[in-house]
């Protein structure tokens, strides 16, 4: 079913192939080799568990970029009904790298938006490989302001390698587009929940990520810089991305442990693309659970909660003045 094999999946794929061969052989020849088949099945299952349950940080980054992984639009269709897509920033264009609109999560009205990747050359060109231009962030801001106006909770789905580093991005002030979103997201008095569904690439991710709850899919990552970018600067060689991924502590588990993520949404064995309905269902119930908690808060409490959440992020030491000389 998966036609795209990650480097660490080779053994699994080989075993799968062997098993298929064995099965068709037994059918063709009408031979009973069921014990062989069972043995192989057990071996395959063991291999799957030991591989997928123990992914390294770099393997998770690869998984988060898997081209068959469900994207924002897939989740919107799987978890919501009556989606009304809203378009454009009313200033320059309709950036397809960020999509969103009104929808229902069961009976709950929400504004759902997120960064969108493409699956083939055509769709990737349309959405710029999931790298938003300034227009994308301004479109997101327009949608969120509208949600705030109509008192509708905001759900943001994050899956981007980062904001687009291009000439036009700078000319139209990508830094301002992100900065304004960061500031404005602190002023919305509705609940905001972010889910990192794939790549949480730096400022481009945070630009729609100032929320009351940050949820991360099991094999998604969220980082200040891509492992390749970090390797290029600190190791002076992009091929050290694996080391950089490890050092950056960017996995869902690390983020949960350090208090930067509020919850992990478990993926099926082998990744979200193996059973996207199952992961969507888990995501939906997790969002609804957190939403229910947040909806018990007043507008003022929601603002305070969001402020205090980010206010507390950061570890440092402070020597009291009376102890220093």
């Amino acid at each position, binding site marked *: 079913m998966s036609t795209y094999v990650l480097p660490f999946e080779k053994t699994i794929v080989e075993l799968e192939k062997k098993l298929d061969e064995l099965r068709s052989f037994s059918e063709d020849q009408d031979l009973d080799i069921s014990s062989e088949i069972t043995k192989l099945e057990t071996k395959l299952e063991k291999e799957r568990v030991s591989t997928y349950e123990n992914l390294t940080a770099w393997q998770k980054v690869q998984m988060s970029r898997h081209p068959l992984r469900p994207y924002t639009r897939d989740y919107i269709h799987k978890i919501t009904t009556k989606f009304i897509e809203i378009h454009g920033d009313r200033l320059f264009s309709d950036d397809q790298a960020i999509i969103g609109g009104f929808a229902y999560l069961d009976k709950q009205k929400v504004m759902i938006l997120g960064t969108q990747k493409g699956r083939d050359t055509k769709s990737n060109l349309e959405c710029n490989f999931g790298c938003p231009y300034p227009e994308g962030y301004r479109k997101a801001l327009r949608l969120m302001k509208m949600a705030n106006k109509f008192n509708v909770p905001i759900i943001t789905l994050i899956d981007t390698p980062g904001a687009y580093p*291009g000439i036009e991005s700078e000319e139209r*002030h990508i*830094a301002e587009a992100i900065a*304004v979103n960061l500031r404005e997201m602190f002023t919305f008095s509705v609940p905001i929940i972010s889910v990192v569904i794939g790549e949480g690439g730096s400022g481009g991710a945070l630009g729609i*990520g100032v929320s009351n709850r940050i949820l991360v899919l099991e094999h998604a990552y969220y980082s200040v810089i891509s492992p390749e970018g970090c390797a290029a600067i600190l190791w002076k060689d992009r091929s050290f991305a694996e080391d950089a991924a490890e050092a950056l502590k960017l996995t869902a588990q690390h983020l949960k442990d350090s208090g930067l993520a509020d919850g992990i949404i478990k993926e099926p064995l082998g990744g979200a693309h193996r059973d996207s309905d199952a992961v969507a269902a888990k995501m939906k119930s997790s969002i609804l659970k957190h939403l229910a908690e947040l909806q018990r808060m007043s507008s003022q409490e929601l603002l305070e909660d969001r402020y205090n959440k980010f206010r507390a992020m950061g570890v*440092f030491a402070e020597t009291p003045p009376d102890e220093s000389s």
Partner: protein
Amino acid sequence: MAFFGKRILSFRNRKKDTPGGLWDSCPSCKEMLYLKEMKEAQGVCTHCSHHFSLPREDRIAMFADAGSFEEWDGDLTSVDTLKFTGTASYTDKLAENLLKTGYKDAISCGKTRVGGFDVGLGVMDFKFLGASMGAVVGEKVTRLIERSTEARMPVLLVCASGGARMYEGLFSLMQMAKTSGALARHAKAGLPYIPILTHPTTAGVMASFATLGDVIIAEPEALIGFAGPRVIKETTQQDLPDGFQRSEFLIKHGLLDMIVHRHDLKQRVVDLLNFWMPESSQRPVPVDGPMGIKQEDVVEAPTKNTPAKRRKS
């Protein structure tokens, strides 16, 4: 931290002893400069107006009314919270930069008086790990803004940054949100905020507090942008336009309010504070102190704000 180090040459570090005294050559016009002269000129080339990077104490002295700066949170120190594994240990890097600069992190903050107005002032220092923003920078900026909000003071932030503090991972990124949240409250209280963008101001700092000013001022020819020019070139495989991401490019695109020569910076800030702040909040200005400014002299915008000669690059 994408470093733009080759252009960041503090004249203090390049000084050479010669029989004639201490001198240095300007990277822009190649003229010989006497360091004493340069210091008096606040790190501006006396021949071509090239703006050198300025040590943070000089930058503070440039804005603060004589003797008015009172430092806040100078003891905040970065922690290797990720136990970063890599080519160099974060702890070693921090120690090395403490030794090099005499400071514990990349920003100094405090309360000061500017033209008689109490102001929350922050000064970033490129020499400390490329003025990258980690938890200490984020916390100090946030405390500066929060306390200024409480005391109803304007905030003035001299920005510089070469990139993220990668050693702190996602904690580093989140400082962008934290500082922006504090600015939302400062703005809601109706208080003015002026970021001053110096060479270079990029990345997370640029995509947060450096860009959220009521009025944004830049020094001439500063490199200002989100992504570094090298990254943009590599990603797009395009040649970058002439003067791309320099102050003059940004103002042409409507992304800045003004480019102000360093010698006129304080005056321009005082002009704005005079306009924004109630007269009752202004205290007498010591006219004899260094850079003291007489209020009655504040009439017109200075005329000396033409950008310096374009550098050959």
